[in-house]
């Protein structure tokens, strides 16, 4: 048995992380809530209590409707795709084919690059007429597509970048999980005459479930957290078609300097993420069985 930690030291070790949590999470959240009941004061407009006025603005905000739809579509589109791709890549590099380490490196590469750099690279890929994407289309005699300049394709183009960036990271988790799948289960199944497809769906995939839940939680957080590429590539445009919720919060708060409405949007985002986290924990507790 270890020696018991002195009570004083234990308290210090408890208080320091708690202080960080309070200073950087709870206080700002509370402050945002308070700010959302005040107007956006400046030297030319005195500060005043406005009650729920900012929340009324929020309900009537057409841009917010668009932003919420975009965010939902973005999350629903990128998460399954990134997970599916990650499983595929993990299976591929786990199959002990020649050149595995090179494949692992190239799949993981996008994850290591900073998002700002990735966004700038993709900006060149997407440039209509001169970019790589247009040149590939040109080889097949297809007209160039204005990926970032049209409302139909801008959000999908953003999602593509996100999937490309994230799948490599998720692959690492799946690779670890795949290597933990006991060989004897697969051997037994093979003896019973199961083919590789059956083995994958009936043995491997169920055993990957805890990993999938963990990855899904992370992917969902990232879907709301990562907006660097939006800032670099489209600034939410054209006509707000690629604006995501966090980008909108950033733009309202720091570009437009409307701290009151920014705080109101932040409250919305915190509530939304809180609900999502609660749902996920509930699912996690019911469905995941860790070995």
């Amino acid at each position: 048995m270890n020696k018991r930690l002195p009570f004083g030291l234990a308290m210090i070790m408890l208080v320091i992380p708690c202080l960080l949590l309070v200073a950087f999470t709870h206080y700002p959240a509370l402050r945002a809530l308070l700010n959302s009941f005040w107007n956006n004061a400046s030297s030319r407009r005195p500060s005043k209590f406005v009650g729920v006025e900012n929340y009324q603005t929020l309900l009537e905000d057409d841009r917010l409707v668009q932003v919420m739809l975009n965010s939902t579509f973005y999350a629903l589109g990128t998460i399954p795709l990134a997970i599916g791709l990650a499983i595929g890549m993990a299976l591929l590099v786990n199959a002990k084919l020649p050149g595995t380490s090179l494949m692992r490196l190239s799949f993981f590469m996008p994850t290591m690059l900073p998002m700002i750099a990735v966004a700038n690279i993709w900006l060149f890929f997407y440039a209509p007429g001169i970019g790589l994407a247009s040149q590939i289309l040109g080889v097949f005699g297809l007209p160039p597509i204005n990926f970032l300049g049209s409302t139909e394709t801008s959000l999908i183009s953003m999602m593509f970048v996100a999937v490309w960036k994230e799948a490599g990271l998720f692959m690492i988790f799946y690779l670890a999980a795949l290597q933990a799948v006991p060989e004897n289960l697969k051997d037994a199944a093979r003896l019973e005459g199961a083919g590789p497809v059956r083995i994958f769906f009936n043995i491997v995939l169920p055993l990957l479930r805890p990993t999938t839940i963990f990855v899904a939680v992370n992917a969902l957080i990232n879907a709301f957290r990562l907006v660097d590429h939006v800032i670099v590539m489209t600034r939410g445009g054209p006509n707000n078609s690629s604006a995501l919720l966090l980008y909108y919060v950033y733009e309202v708060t720091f570009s437009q300097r409307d701290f009151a409405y920014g705080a109101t949007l932040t409250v919305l985002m915190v509530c939304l993420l809180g609900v999502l986290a609660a749902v996920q924990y509930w699912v996690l507790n019911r469905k995941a069985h860790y070995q």
Partner: protein
Amino acid sequence: MTIMTKLAGSCCTAAMFSLAATSVSAADLEFYFPVGVNAPAVETIQALTDEWAAQNPQHSVKAVYAGNYEETTTKALTAANAGQPPQVAVLLSIDLFTLVEEDVIVAISDIANTPEDQEWIDGFYDGFMKDAEFEGKTYAIPFQRSTPVYYYNKDAFRAAGLDPETPPKTWDEMIEMGKKLTIKDDNGNVTQWGTRIPTLGLGGAWLFGGLVVSKGDVLTTDTGIEARMDTPATKASLEFLLELSKQEVMAPGGISWGDTPKAFLEGQTASMWTSTGNLAFVEENATFDWGVGFLPGGDGPGAPIGGGNFYIFQDTTDEERAAALDFIKFMTSPANAAKWSIATGYVAPRPDAWETPEMKAYAERLPQALVALDQLQYAEREFATFQRAKVTQYLVDAIESVVTGNAEPAEALKAAQEGADGVLGDYQ
């Protein structure tokens, strides 16, 4: 022994010198600047800053590259709100109202109040001073000022049978000549467009201001509380942009600011509208014969003025303000304004800078640089109001929704006007 005494002696002298210098007026300046063009801007700014520091050993100055315009403004305002402002910064001219409202800058005319100072301030082009003044005071000093011009590929003009020395002057000519300049391959895909006017984001809104000016109207006035988005001029301007795509002179959909110079250099477009700030970049990279003309206009020539000015911040000591003013005078002196203009393509903001031998040689070598200067008399201030970022967003949304085919000009402009009036109503 003797060496030691000498050393001690020189140390003493050095100490006394520095003491003397400190007591005169020492200021540690922090200077934020943005870069908004493809040019070796950071090196040039750093070299000029070092030169000033060498001439003024009692002061020190730290030049901080703070990103693009928007990021620099955000950083400067955040630093000012935290009580640690930069003493001096180059920020967008149109941020004037924001900076006044946030109460973070001092009026330069309050510091520079001797007759010589007044003469110095009067020495800048009027066009550039229009948006540096508010309520009778001068708040900013022009530095990296620009205006968009029409760049065109003379080789492409020759190939299309057009006179390479006469670029289009009107919107009608632009469509007429543009049709000849557009080239398609065997599959019917366009390989070279007639022109390229960026329509997305703030760059798009800036150029849109030029279209409106050429129709004899303005988007905003010097009060900072009026936005004129729903007018016959704005409607005609949006319809012109649509017409360009409809006539296959310009690519349909939104066109980004950032890709434009590259598309021009790669021959994807025979002409483009972009800032004079790209002159140096185009000169360096163009593999073909190119020229520059006024922006073709609706009823006559017209262009917006853009770019950045020097501001001096509050929460600074008198010594720091004096040093900052001296620094600004140094940076905008004829010789240095010329250096900066030649390195980037920005329009030197004072007539006397154009009289320097370097500038004359430059204008001789690159006559395209003079076009922007000549166009200045037809140019109007860029979109600027209180709450600019918020109000401009309504205009940006209107332009983007129309060029991407999601709205009709009339309804989009009406919605934009309502939004802008809602925000500016608080100030009237």
